[in-house]
């Protein structure tokens, strides 16, 4: 009791919630490294065209300079078609990030709507929604993606749809359980006692309290989605050649792996570092956003 109270005393001396989160986040060096890496990768994606011309360097083939090692002109060397590896990695980050962001956004919004409805309405509606989600949950995400890709045709659009759909049950569950906890808080009862309407209570009182948990989960799933996108492209179900997608690059590099190990190492590292950074960032955020984790 005393210990809990003391934390509140500490909290009372803090200037604001945001500075406080930043203070706790900053203490976690790994999370800080994750954040910086994510920012750098995001900058690469945003300024990809400035760093390297897409058509000239990442798509057009130059057989005369194929399989060169790193040099001043091509800092990461060139691939089997004489394309600049650096340019392809930089442009590839656009695919990975767009894809991960789009999927996360769609499943987050979809999941929140479904989960919040289930929690607020309750009863039979809740049971039906949850059972349908269970059914979705049983289907492996990869299988769903492969079948959707064969139905809608292979491409970015079908894997975004497929992975977004398979992401929805997870978010819906989290949102539902968080909302159920929040709806039992006395401040929700107080809002009801003040005569507030349902919409005002959900949007104004319940959602803001669930947001921090959703942010953390979104960061964690970004990492998973980057891996999924790479795997799908690797098996040829994702983004098609000649687009510079990391998973596809890894697959192409396999052919030259014996003599030119960097051909698989570079896209491999890109995937691992990006996924790891998002994971570390998510980890750090979950600790920083939850003051109970403090000591």
């Amino acid at each position, binding site marked *: 009791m005393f210990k809990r109270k003391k934390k*509140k*005393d500490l*909290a*009372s001396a*803090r200037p*604001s*919630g945001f500075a406080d989160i930043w203070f706790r986040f900053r203490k976690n060096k790994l999370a800080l490294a994750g954040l910086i890496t994510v920012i750098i990768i995001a900058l690469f994606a945003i300024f990809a065209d400035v760093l390297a011309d897409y058509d000239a360097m990442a798509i057009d083939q130059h057989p005369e300079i194929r399989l060169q090692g790193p040099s001043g002109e091509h800092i990461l060397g060139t691939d089997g078609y004489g394309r600049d590896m650096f340019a392809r990695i930089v442009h590839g980050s656009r695919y990975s990030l767009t894809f991960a962001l789009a999927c996360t956004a769609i499943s987050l919004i979809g999941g929140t709507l479904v989960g919040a409805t289930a929690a607020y309405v309750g009863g039979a509606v809740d049971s039906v929604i949850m059972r349908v989600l269970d059914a979705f949950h049983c289907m492996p995400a990869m299988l769903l993606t492969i079948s959707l890709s064969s139905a809608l045709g292979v491409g970015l659009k079908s894997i975004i749809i497929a992975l977004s759909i398979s992401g929805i049950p997870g978010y819906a569950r989290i949102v539902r359980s968080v909302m159920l906890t929040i709806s039992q*808080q*006395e*401040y929700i*009862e*107080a*809002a*009801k*006692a*003040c*005569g*507030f*309407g349902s919409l*005002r209570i959900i949007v*104004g*009182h319940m959602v*803001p*309290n669930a947001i921090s948990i959703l942010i953390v989960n979104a960061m964690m799933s970004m990492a998973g989605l980057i891996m999924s996108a790479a795997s799908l492209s690797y098996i040829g179900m994702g983004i098609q050649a000649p687009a510079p997608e990391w998973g596809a690059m890894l697959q192409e590099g396999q052919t030259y792996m014996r003599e030119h190990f960097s051909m698989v190492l570079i896209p491999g590292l890109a995937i691992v570092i990006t996924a790891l950074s998002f994971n570390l960032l998510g980890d750090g955020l979950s600790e920083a956003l939850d003051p109970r984790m403090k000591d």
Partner: protein
Amino acid sequence: MQPVIETKDLKKYFKVGSSSFLHAVDTVNLSIPAGATLGVVGESGCGKSTLGRTILGLHPATDGQVLYKGRDITHLKPAERKKLAREMQIIFQDPYSSINPRHSISHIIGEPIKVHKLVKGKAELEERVRELMNTVGLAPRLYDAYPHELDGGRRQRVGIARALGMAPEFIVCDEPVSALDVSIQAQILNLLMDLQEKMGLTYMFITHDLSVVKHISNEIAVMYLGQCVERAPSDELFKNPAHPYTRALLSAIPVPNASARERKPQLIRGEITSPIDPKPGCRFAVRCPHATESCTGEELHLTELSPGHFVMCRLHEN
């Protein structure tokens, strides 16, 4: 004079499992005159909080009636209920969970005023919020502060200001001081009494602590397992407690003076029994030192011992 709040055979059952019912509030009759305070006392699980929430319509009643100034408000349409929220308010026990941590103090106090359109424009709203903060003793600098910057006592003041914003006539105080330290407890109790005198508020004061209600109540109702087992004017209850449970409660309170050693508390056996599908008869009988066979099997009724002093106990029938 017409009472502000009256309950007639009010019942609130919760369904548990397939065919069992938890009798949280069972046939409770109360009335609170304007400007008075009714203390509702009982231990955890006696249904005192459910009673307050059922009166306010936060839980729909299972049976019986709630009258507000003579008008039946048991089954209101949502729109009417919303309007009534302006006149009937609640103050909660836990100052840490009863105000939204994501909202600023001014937002928490101002939102109900805005929603019920009690003021025109932003300037007037701010003026009203500042006035309320002043009334409950919150420093003006806390206007833009967030709940985590406040201690328990100040948070409780925010909760009180929020309730007062709509200028209610009746407030259910659900254990408003039990989560607070003694020195802060006294400050909040005095504030509630000041507000009552100034604004002519009517309170229903729910607590587990008999010594707290003594100071604030005109009349006290003692609850046990959903039933009101004794009801009497405050002084009368402390002078002549009639129900064995009331006596046990009174003697169990540790008193901070030297005589505490001499007076041995009348210990009662066991713990509160289940409120699920209780059998007819006195619900306290299993723990009661005076229980006889006649206590079980048949429902008991309140007997009037002296004017205004009611008790539900076989010992006092006839």
